Structure formats: C-alpha cells, structure tokens
C-alpha cells in the first residue's frame, strides 16, 4: 500500500465565467519516503491538486469526486476535525511565497510552535525547544535569538527556511512542497533545495514536489507526473522522463530548457499557452499546441496508457496520455532525444549523473531541434493566446 493514493480526483471551481475544472479525473500515488515531482505550466492544476490532498479547497472550489487515501484512510470520508488532525501533523505543506504564508503579526517561533503544541501536546517550553532545534536544522543562524523575530525581520531565504521548519515541525509522513523556491534567487534556491532534500531523508518524509522547473525535478525526484490542463499527461521514473519522454508536451518542456553553450538567439518555447480551463479544447486538450496533432486528436480524449503496449493502466509508474499509443494516429511521433553524457555513452562532461547539479552543467541535452519541428512553428504565435490563468 502506498502512502498516498489519489484516484479519479476532480476539482471544479464555480466562477462567474463558468465552471473551471482545475483538476480532471486525476490519479497518482506516492510511496513512503519517495520524492514525487509534479510538473507543468501555470494553470495546470498542480497547486489545486496539492490543496485537495489536504482538503483545503475553498469556495468557489469544490472537490467533485475521487478518493484520497492516505495510509489506507480515505481523507474524503473524514470529518472536518479528523482532517485537521492529519493536516500539519501527517501531511504538511510548504508554501510558494513564504512572505505571504507567514502571519506578519506573530513571531516566527510562535508560528512554528503553535502546530507543535496543538498536535503533539507539548508544553510551551518543550515546543520552544523543538522549534529552536528545527530552526537550527533548516539552517537559520542563532535560532534561539531568531525565535522571537517577526517575519519581516527575516530575509526571503530565511522566511522560506522557517516555512520548511514549520512544515517539518510535527514530523509529517508527507511533505507537499508547492513551488518552494520560486520566489527565491538561484543561489538560495539551490541551498534550500539541498537542505530540503537532506531533511526529507533524515526525517524519512515523502515529498510531493510541485514545480514548473524541470531542473529542480531532475535534481530531487524519483518519479514524475507531468500535468497539462488539469490532467496527468505522463508518468515516469525521473530518468526515463528525461531520456525517453513519451508525451509531446513533455518533449516540448524539455526542449524549452535553455542550455549553456547553445548558440540560439531565441529560447525555445512551446507555441501558445495553456488553454482557458472554462473552455478546454475538445479531444486532447494539448492538440492546439501539439506539432504532431492530427484530426483524431480534436475528437478523442487520449487515456493514460502504457506507451509500450497501449493498455490502460492504474497507478502505474510509466504511462502517457497520447493517441499515438492507442493506435489512433496515422503517423508516429517523430522526435529524437539526445542526451549528452547519458546512459551507455562515455560522459563528455563533468556531470555524468543526470540527477547531479543543474546550474553549472546542464545534464540533459535534447537535440537543439528535439521534436523535429520546423523552427517556424516554434517561433510563431500559438493558436490560442487566451490563456493567462492564475498559477494553478
């Protein structure tokens, strides 16, 4: 039994423009101690998925259907107060923007201790000691003196560390990190991810890492789910995702990573933007942006299948949602992936491990024209410019 099993989760938001299906029939699982990455553009439903797992979706949003089994217990069936015993205690969350996630009028120490006092029944003094240890663990200097500081007296990086300490405070089994370093600069980001990675191992905590940064995924995660317009389009162990991406969207994301040494004037992009979730394109929601799209893609929504066999899958490690694998396409997906210093070939740089550092040497290099597209397609404006959702 996995630590977390989400099945057929659908979350709707009832907005004035219409019903937005932010998460559409999504299934995934996270094993104990595993680091699970969720990747996708803004508006893909990543954050909504995270909040749903903690049952923190608020009006006008609603979890329409699905089961969220944590440790075998369906969280959807629990009472509000029973869910509160899980929140912060068994499942904790690291927020994207620490500055807004911290309450400005209480000290950082108090905001960490209150969860400890609440869930673990610690006395004030015990909670304070534990908090100081946590602050020390996440790398805040002079934690004892810093305990009584207010959030505005912390730097951005320290605020994020404090948020991580808060999330770890009750020794959770699952840590949901929602773009934990997006608000930080690259050097701080690397340090904090490194710290998070080590602490997760130390505390034996599983992580659901939500990001739009494939580099971060490569660095930390074991398995990855790629999301597009509220659905999972590809699931893969991290190495397979990079060496052998199966979904055209994943391929597009890969080719959008700029590489040091590239002599290109423009960054590669996936043409167009995430569709407006009020009016999702028919069939495969990615088809307006997909270079391989055929007529069939506008009609039929591709199921998640095993890309080798084309069979439907449950919570499998390897799946992709593209009609190419169900035999509905006339032609094949035509792209090649070239990984420098990858498996089987002698390393030609100092960073042969694809999960190594990503800031100095890009470990994963797709061909400069990886999807075999004509560059004209990549440069022109997308067919759908109406996107611009809030960060999902």
């Amino acid at each position, binding site marked *: 039994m996995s630590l977390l099993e989400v099945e057929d989760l659908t979350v709707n938001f009832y907005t004035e423009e219409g019903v937005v299906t932010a998460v559409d029939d999504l299934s995934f699982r996270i094993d104990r101690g595993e680091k699970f990455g969720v990747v996708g553009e803004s508006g893909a439903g990543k954050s909504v998925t995270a*909040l749903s797992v903690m049952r923190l979706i608020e009006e006008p949003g609603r979890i329409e259907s699905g089961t969220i089994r944590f440790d075998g217990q369906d969280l959807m069936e629990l009472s509000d107060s029973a869910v509160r015993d899980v*929140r912060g205690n068994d499942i904790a969350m690291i927020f994207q923007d620490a500055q807004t996630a911290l309450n400005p009028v209480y000290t950082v120490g108090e905001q960490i201790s209150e969860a400890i006092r609440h869930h673990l029944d610690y006395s004030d003094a015990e909670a304070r000691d534990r908090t100081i240890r946590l602050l020390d663990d996440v790398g805040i200097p002079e934690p004892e003196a810093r305990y009584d500081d*207010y959030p505005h007296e912390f730097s951005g990086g320290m605020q994020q560390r404090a948020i991580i300490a808060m999330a770890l405070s009750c020794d959770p089994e699952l840590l949901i990190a929602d773009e934990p370093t997006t608000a930080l600069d690259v050097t701080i980001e690397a340090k904090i991810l490194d710290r998070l990675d080590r602490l997760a191992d130390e505390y034996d905590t599983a992580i659901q890492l939500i990001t739009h940064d494939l580099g971060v995924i490569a660095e930390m995660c074991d398995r990855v789910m790629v999301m597009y317009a509220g659905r999972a389009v590809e699931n893969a162990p991290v190495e397979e995702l990079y060496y052998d991406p199966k979904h055209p969207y994943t391929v597009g994301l890969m080719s959008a990573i700029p590489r040091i040494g590239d002599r290109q004037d423009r960054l590669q992009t996936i043409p167009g933007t995430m569709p407006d979730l009020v009016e999702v394109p028919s069939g495969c929601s990615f088809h307006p942006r997909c270079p391989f799209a055929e007529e069939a893609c506008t009609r039929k929504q591709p199921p998640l299948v095993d890309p080798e066999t084309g069979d439907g899958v449950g919570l499998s490690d390897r799946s992709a949602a593209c009609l190419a694998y169900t035999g509905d396409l006339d032609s094949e997906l035509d792209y090649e992936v070239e990984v420098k210093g990858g498996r089987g070939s002698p390393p030609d740089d100092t960073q042969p491990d694809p999960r190594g550092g990503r800031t100095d040497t890009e470990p994963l290099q797709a061909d400069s024209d990886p999807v075999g597209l004509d560059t004209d397609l990549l440069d022109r404006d997308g067919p759908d410019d109406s996107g611009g959702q809030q960060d999902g």
Partner: protein
Amino acid sequence: MGLRRFIAVRVLTTIPILFGVSVFTFAMVHLTPGDPIDQLVALNPQISAAEEAAIRARYGLDGPVWQQYFTWITNVLQGDFGTVINVDQPVGPYIMDRLPQTIALGLFGWVIALLIAIPTGIYAAVNKDTLGDDLSRVFALSGISLPNFWLGLMLILVFALWLDLWPVLAPNKPLFSPAMLKYLVLPGVTIGTASSATLMRVMRSSMAEEMNKEYVTAARAKGLPERTVVLKHVLRNSLISVTTIAAFLTASIFAGAVVVESVFAWPGLGRAFVKAISGREVDLIMAITLFTGVTIILANLLADIVYALLDPRIRYD
C-alpha cells in the same frame, strides 16, 4: 524610547491645532449676533445703558474681537477659562461638574459599540453571503441611517413608557452608584448603536479581506481549529483598521452625546454645550470645544499606540 519620543512630538503638534481651533471657534461665535448681556437686558428692561456697558466691561465684552481673544487666551494660558455669565460661575468647576457624566456616557456607548460591532463583524465575515451576513448588513444600514434623536425617543417610548421597564429621568445621585448605572443604559445604547454600525462594516470588510490571505491557508494547513485561525491569526490583523475607525468615532460619539443628552435630559457636557450656544456663553463654548478637541486628538494618539501593539511592523522611530 522611540515610542516616548513619538508621543512627545505628537503632543507638541497638538498645540498649533488647538490654537487654530480656538481662533476659528472664537471667530464663529462672534459672527453670530448677541451675547449673554443682550439676553439679560431683554429680560430686565429696567437696566440702563450705562449699567449695561458696565456689565459688558466687567466680562470683557466691550473691546474689539481681537482684543477679546487676546484677553481670553491670556487668561486661558494662566488656567482661567472665564465665567459662565448666566449663573456667574467659573467655567472650570462648571465643566468638572458635568464632565464625569459625559465620560461615563461616552465610554459606555463606546463599549456597547465595540461589543456589538466586533462579534457581529467577525460573524458576518466568516459567514460571508449567508443570511446572517445579510441581516447584519440590514442592521448596519439601519444603524447608520437612523438619527440618534429618533432612536433615543423610540427607546424611551418603548422601554420607558410602553413596557415600563426602564427609568429615564436620572435622579441627582452620585454618578458611579448602581442606581445611576441603570439610567446609563438607554442613552448608552442610543449612542453605541450608530457607532457600532460603522465599526461593524469596517470589521467585516477588513476581516473578509484578511481571510483571503495566504497565511490563513497556511494556518489551516497546520491543522489549527478554525476558531484559532479566525480569532488568533485573522482577528489581530483585522483590528488594525478597526482601531482607526474606533478612534475616529470618538468625535461622532461626542457629537452624539450632544443630541442624546438633550433627549434623555442627561446632566452632562453635551447638554451644557447646547445651552451654552443658545445663551451665547462664549467662554463655555470655547472651553468645551477645546476640551473636545483635546479628547479627539488624544483618542487618535491612543490609536497610534495601539497600532504599534497590534502590528510589530509599525515602529515609531
């Protein structure tokens, strides 16, 4: 240290404000025709012109306005606020006799306003767009729209006359005795209701705005009970804007006291103020106006200090 300096500076800046208020009020009073001596003469036709001039001279009412002002402010700076001519009593003791009544009424009204506004505001914000929220909106709108004198009269009519539940005309007893407290209730409720309406709307909107902030989601994600999330995390942040309005309301509470004291025949400064105006008692008008000004300035100073207590980001240095 920073706070002490801040208070000192603020107290010093009140001096020019009070000076301006005194000049303005003095000018306004002298723009209206008549003074207490005119009334005296009208009631006692036997007074001769020479006698009238002598009385005017005695109260310093014979010079040009600027000279009268100069005399007045010189005396005030020496602690002499002049005379209530009608009863021939010094202004100082006259005010001190009535001040406690008004302070008691004002504070009582203020406490009632807060007691109604804060819980209702919290309730309305937490249960936004439900029936309870709508009802509170209706209450607030009525509270803002109903004039004090009308509400006061209605309370007298219903509770004192029809239901015979509440006594109205305060006997002349020491203020802080249980018997007198009972008489405070109706005028206090009258004053408090109007203020509570405004306060409640501010409480609700400020709370509703805070509820959307991410620290609230973060607090919920910690597994804290909703009560703690609202009353600990959200409330303290919301109270900052409520404090501003509460201080601001001091002025309208005093203005309300003028009307309500007249309606309930409450022996306080507000009623004295109305009498002072109709009797053209310059010294008394000036003293009560200055006193009100000082009170409002102090209330706002208090609000600034409360900000710093509520929000650690506010520092006065």
